[in-house]
């Protein structure tokens, strides 16, 4: 199959994300990229664990007094749900239904944006209430770097998916843009998985001291 072919609902392949050589390459290459990203986050997690609660003096707030579980629980639910909505979007992509795909992707974007807004609130809360800043201690540096790297990934994902939706809004699906949507959803799942680890390692483990 060629990327430029005009397809109908009947001729649309079962796996449009892998039906041309370019698409197969993109699919596999993106998985490898996510492999590299995993190591990147692993390094950040290791750094965080090494520097957790490492502060210059006793006036600094430690993890167990800092984190607010209800807030991060809401954030977690938002991001997990956004992963689900992106699954629905891909379901409609595979069924050659661009309209519904866009609808679910927009929902994904809204949930992602809400998550990001909560994170911004959370950070400013720590800064203003606890003077826990990027430069106040090694703990602060490690915390904001790990969670901030994840937040930056979410922000990039929002821009990326928005660009994809806007660019392809009027021309529907073809084998050239279907893999693009697919890898964007893979990316979205990935940042969701990373968040699950952040929730566990940073927040839950933070609460038990």
């Amino acid at each position, binding site marked *: 199959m060629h*990327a430029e072919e005009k397809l109908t609902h009947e001729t649309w392949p079962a796996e449009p994300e892998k039906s041309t050589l370019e698409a197969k390459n993109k699919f*596999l*290459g993106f998985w490898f990229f996510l*492999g590299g990203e995993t*190591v990147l986050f692993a390094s950040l997690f290791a750094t965080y664990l090494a520097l957790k609660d*490492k502060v210059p003096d006793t006036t600094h707030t430690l993890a167990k007094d800092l984190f607010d579980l209800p807030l991060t629980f809401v954030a977690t639910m938002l991001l997990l749900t956004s992963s689900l909505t992106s699954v629905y979007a891909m379901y409609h992509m595979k069924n050659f239904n661009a309209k519904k795909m866009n609808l679910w992707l927009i929902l994904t974007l809204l949930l992602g944006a809400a998550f990001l807004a909560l994170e911004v609130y959370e950070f400013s809360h720590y800064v203003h209430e606890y003077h826990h800043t990027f430069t106040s201690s*090694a703990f602060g540096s490690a915390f904001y*770097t790990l969670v901030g790297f994840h937040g930056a990934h979410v922000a990039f994902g929002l821009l990326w998916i928005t660009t994809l939706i806007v660019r392809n809004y009027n021309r529907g699906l073809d084998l050239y843009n279907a893999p693009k949507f697919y890898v964007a959803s893979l990316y979205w799942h990935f940042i969701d998985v990373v968040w699950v680890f952040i929730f566990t390692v940073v927040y839950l483990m933070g609460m038990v001291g």
Partner: protein
Amino acid sequence: MSTYAQKKGFGATLWDYLTTVDHKKIAILYLIAGGFFFVVGGLEAVFIRIQLAVPNNDFVSAGLFNEIITMHGTTMIFLAAMPLVFAFMNAVMPLQIGARDVAFPFVNALGFWLFFFGGVFLNLSWFFDGAPDAGWTSYASLAMASKGHGVDFYVLGLQISGLGTLIGGINFLVTIINMRAPGMTYMRMPLFTWTTFVTSALILFAFPPLTVGLVLMMFDRMFGSNFFVTTMGGNTVIWEHLFWIFGHPEVYILILPAFGIFSEIFPMFSRKRLFGYSSMVFATVLIGFLGFMVWAHHMFTTGLGPVANAIFAVATMAIGVPTGIKIFNWLFTIWGGSVKFTTPMHWALAFIPSFLAGGVTGVMLAAAAADYQYHDTYFVVAHFHYVIVGGVVFAIFAGTHLYWPKMFGTMLNETLGKITFWLFFIGFHMTFFIQHFLGLWGMPRRVFTYLPGQGFETSNLISSIGAVFMSLAVIVMLYNIIMTSVKNVKVGNDPWGDGRTLEWALPSPPPFYNFKQLPLVRGLDAYWLEKMEGKKGMTPAEPLGDIHMPNSSFLPFVIAFGLFVAAFGALFNMDDKAWSVPVIIIGLLITFGAMFLRSVKDDHGFHIHKEELMEDDNDKGVKA
């Protein structure tokens, strides 16, 4: 495509190379840029040896000496050895698997330009109050205390070029998995392709820790964070870990492709198939795997404790086993072969004892208790130069002579090639063999001078004289390159006469689409197999048809250039210069703008039509 036969002007050629996405041209770019940085790093080495030739020398100051050793190591590893290895991977690997290009031609070009601008940025530090001076490992305890902007150039330059390497690795992995010709199963892949494959996997998993380490150091130096500031709870050992989790796989990233090149040379010029092919593949994969398990052997004296030291010591010694398998397989390949002493074969034969010496000292260093004596002495310097020069640099010289005809269509002069070899071989052992003893006698590494009467004078002088021989060797090779390029005697498909793998079935240099029809691979050493059955070339695996090719693009250059601009802004932001923030923003806008353009503008590539390909057949010979 008769237009391709026309002579192009200089401007058009330059534009062609700035926008190319063809793996063969990108290989030439890597070769030129890597070769340039090799000469720069070599000059720095010469300055080191001049300074150390006699005791109490004042050829360079102590501070400048620190900058020179740092830049020598960093340049040689990141900007010379890796790009030169990448040059051969790009030039040869797609041909060896019977592919028309790599999986992501655009990304391939982007990888090159990121490396190039990162390297240029790092070297521009010489012109802005000083180069980095914390050693190529840039340990945080030294780097955080370094005055001026040297370390910032190191951090930002390596970050940019590291990104280029990472995407290059992903590209090669996907290419090898998805784009092999019909019949090219994994266990029929030439060893150089196998080592490219494993190396790319190492790049993929080893570079992110470096990225993180560099980010942390950038944050600490530029934005006031405290990762390595002990008074604020920071810990400098984190840098050591992150650096070596990258740094140790990095040495295998360098040496595995070197093994691959030699594994091509031995069967070619022994005219015998590679002994123990499957054990070679197994050993390559095992070395790649174990390469991630041994990083802390660089940190035996850091104080990780006896348990950690013991585990890492044993893991390190274990790597000797697959490497030993390889050495024996190469020896058995030569055994009973009809050996032809070409220039590449000279390098390959010299590689075995030279590299083996480095391997033996490696096992000595792996004994943690003994390492407390060797650590930070010239013994270590001798060890890693034996493996890196005796392994990687020998392979780069060998590969340059071996693949020159495939890349440029003309042979390098064999006599001059052998002169290069002998000068370099003698110079190399003269410089570095004696350094083992200097280390055991107690000369610490990284000192800018030493006192007379400590027994170091003669040995250091001998070592410095060796550097002269190596310099002469490089000059002879450059002369060889210029002379043969001027003469430009064209050669055919298989100029060595003993080509075994697919690249030798193609014209030298191959047409830009590589294979008119994808070849049918019927076994290991696919081309050799056909030759032995009296055929002239490969059997096609498909009828002649349209070929899909990617479009050239200027965007890779622009994306990399934007980061280069932004890096300048980030660096001078530390001095509170008013213009620095706008410069960062402009740079990032250039990069992300170009990425945005790439994303929204459809790029379907183009097709070479069947008729044009048939026309090509008729006016062969005219075409370059």
